[in-house]
């Protein structure tokens, strides 16, 4: 079985975008700001070339293609998870990282445990493990992104322009992936080739979102000043909390006296 001309076209566009993105990551020195995201981009490019070479030499349905596909999938998956974790850390490190890190750790553990349990039930554990981890990772990434954004909105935590675009790209891709993972299995099997192409297109859209801000030079990276040190925050917030409790008590007392 060979790829159709449309699939080939998508692949060529995808490869061109990946190369452009990788070149821009290097040219704009994004690896200094987001090293794990840059690593993810590099691995995506390497994976693309390795897969293309394998398909060209051994064929689309060969055993070599199978091993190459599944092993590279694992590596790229881990890189994607790390890139999202980096985004969380960069976004929340000055603020609610204390809570976020625990939530993220629990989610990561749950994803891994789910993958292992599902793999243990199947006769082809390695591939099932990767497939299950991919599916749970897509869910996990979506849940983590929702949690990150909700925490950002709740605690007024804002991120820089480039990080915002990376986040938007991951959101678009993950949204498509989770819908894809669900509906492909249930209703879209007959249209598998089209559905895979749609998945490729969603990644290309994400790449365009990442490429756009890199076309212009990035603003210089400035470390945000520490406005409130950790020790100070503990003692100050204790006082704040004490005052709040007193205010709440006073309000209760006033309310009670009104009703009497």
């Amino acid at each position, binding site marked *: 079985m060979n790829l159709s001309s449309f699939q080939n076209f998508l692949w060529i566009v995808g490869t061109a975008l990946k190369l452009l993105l990788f070149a821009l990551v290097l040219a704009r020195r994004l690896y200094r700001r987001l090293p794990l995201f840059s690593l993810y981009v590099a691995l995506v490019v390497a994976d693309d070339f390795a897969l293309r070479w394998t398909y060209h030499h051994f064929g689309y*349905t060969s055993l070599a293609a199978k091993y190459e*596909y599944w092993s590279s999938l694992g590596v790229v998956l881990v890189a994607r998870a790390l890139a999202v974790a980096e985004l969380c850390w960069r976004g929340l490190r000055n*603020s*609610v990282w*204390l*809570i976020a890190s625990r939530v993220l750790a629990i989610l990561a553990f749950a994803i891994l445990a789910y993958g292992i349990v*599902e793999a243990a*039930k*199947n006769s*082809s554990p390695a*591939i*099932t493990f990767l*497939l299950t981890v991919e599916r749970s990772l897509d*869910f996990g990434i*979506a849940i983590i*992104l*929702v949690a990150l*954004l*909700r925490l*950002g*909105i709740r*605690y*007024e935590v*804002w*991120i820089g322009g480039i990080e*915002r675009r990376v986040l*938007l790209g991951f*959101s678009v891709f*993950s*949204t498509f992936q*989770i*819908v894809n*993972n*669900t*509906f*492909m*299995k*249930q209703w879209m*099997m007959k249209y598998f080739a089209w559905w895979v192409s749609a998945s490729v297109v969603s990644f290309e859209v994400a790449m365009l979102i990442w490429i756009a801000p890199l076309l212009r030079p990035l603003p210089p990276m400035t470390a945000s*000043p520490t*406005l*409130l040190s*950790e*020790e*100070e*925050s*503990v*003692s*100050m*917030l*204790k*006082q*704040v*909390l004490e*005052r*709040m*409790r007193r*205010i*709440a008590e006073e*309000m209760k007392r006033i309310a009670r006296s009104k009703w009497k």
Partner: protein
Amino acid sequence: MRVTICESIWYRHNKDGHYVMWFQPTFSLILAAALLYVTFVYLKQQSARERRIKTQRDLPREQLLAHHYTSFVEVENKLWAATAEGARTANWDTARIEFRSAELQLVRKYVRGLQEDFAIGNRIFAVVIGHSAEVKMLRQLEWQRIKIEFPYYVWHRLICFRLWMGQVSPGELRRLTEIVATLAYEVRSMLNVFERGGNVDFVEYLVRKS
């Protein structure tokens, strides 16, 4: 190859019954919609914040803190004056009075002001909570915040509903004002604590750049 693996997994799951079959697609759709929605809200709020920081750079500090709630007495007096004498009962606080559009407009404007006040206070509160270095402290502060937030949203929705019906209850308006005033007082007291501790830059950041 991938198709076969996907199918085998799915068929095995299908035998378990409808639970997996319907729960997973529903959950996926909800999750996908939630992700797109929060991404949109987050990006919109971040743009709004950038615009706000630019516009409030040179404003006096008093205007950057909650201040609309202080005009409650004025609003209440106007409502009292506009109420027909027969309707001015001893139960003024619990009465639900139907007003003309001019008074309803006045109340709507006042409620919008309260909404702004609440947004300012809640924003400063959020940034302060975000700086907690201890989880226990964060939990306690968050609890204080929820104790204000929850009644605010309940009373706000109720008053908006009454306004939509063409009615105003002075007692409910007073209750909402009290909640916003409490938050404003707590925020001012918070800023005082930081200022007295010598964290003037942090206070400036909270007021102008949060």
